[in-house]
């Protein structure tokens, strides 16, 4: 019973504000430590790749950033849907707080992908299913932010943005399965839950550490932004 009460207690922006600050602070510290460990493993422990030489080291930011770009979109659409369904103020703020960080990681995934594609495929960009659907993801994030910025009333902006976020969520499975559904230049998943990873364990460790660092960074950045939104709106 008390757990339910607490849940609703924190659904109010005023009570959530200090909690968000504490979580953001600890996540930021943990993210910095994990990133340092991940970079150390990525550059000094993980061996040179037999096929790609040192160029493969882009993987330690490319794959975690691509994961975050999709995961953050799902979380953003989730909060947007909760906000539409229950008309809770904080949910819309969470969605708006996540969007810029999601857009940032989408851009990073595309940018590092381009710089990885040039030495391995011979082109910075190809109109391949994986790359194109990831570019659409960036436009969805930017569209969500532009739409919200264009509407003055924050509650109406939340509702309009929520619709866009929910409809756009259909793009996330398309990105994820694009390498299976279409013939693409992009390689398939290197890590999956159903089979052993197809890479050296030190490489995998570096990637997982960086993914955790990006994950905690995203929580910290999104919550810090939610705190700004609470201050600005209330």
């Amino acid at each position, binding site marked *: 019973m008390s757990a339910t009460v607490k849940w609703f207690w924190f659904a109010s922006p005023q009570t959530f504000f200090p909690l968000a600050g504490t979580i953001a602070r600890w996540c930021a510290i943990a993210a910095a430590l994990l990133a340092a460990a991940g970079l150390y493993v990525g*550059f*000094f422990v*993980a*061996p*040179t790749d037999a096929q790609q*030489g*040192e*160029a493969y*080291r*882009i993987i330690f*930011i*490319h794959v975690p*950033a691509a994961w975050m770009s999709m995961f953050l979109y799902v979380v953003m659409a989730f909060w947007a849907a909760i906000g539409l369904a229950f008309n809770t103020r904080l949910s819309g703020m969470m969605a708006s707080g996540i969007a*810029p*960080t999601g857009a*940032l990681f989408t*851009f*990073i995934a595309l*940018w*590092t992908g381009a*710089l*990885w594609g*040039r*030495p391995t495929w011979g082109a910075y960009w190809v109109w391949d299913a994986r790359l194109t659907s990831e570019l659409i993801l960036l436009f969805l994030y930017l569209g969500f932010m532009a739409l919200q910025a264009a509407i003055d009333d924050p509650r109406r902006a939340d509702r309009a943005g929520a619709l866009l976020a929910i409809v756009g969520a259909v793009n996330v499975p398309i990105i994820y399965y694009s390498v299976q559904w279409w013939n693409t230049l992009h390689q398939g998943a290197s890590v999956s839950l159903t089979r052993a990873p197809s890479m050296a364990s030190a490489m995998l460790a570096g990637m997982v550490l960086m993914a955790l660092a990006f994950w905690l*960074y995203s929580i910290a*950045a999104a919550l*810090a*932004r939610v*705190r*700004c939104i609470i*201050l*600005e709106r209330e």
Partner: protein
Amino acid sequence: MNWGGWSEFWAMGGYGFYVWGSYGVTFACLALEILFLLKRSHEAKT
């Protein structure tokens, strides 16, 4: 240990431009986001 020295480390086996171009832009982006957030929170509080 993978590298014989700093110059080898920065060269990244000839892929320095691509590897450091990726890492540099990534960290610049994150640093900018942090700066913007600090600025926004400072402005929101005053």
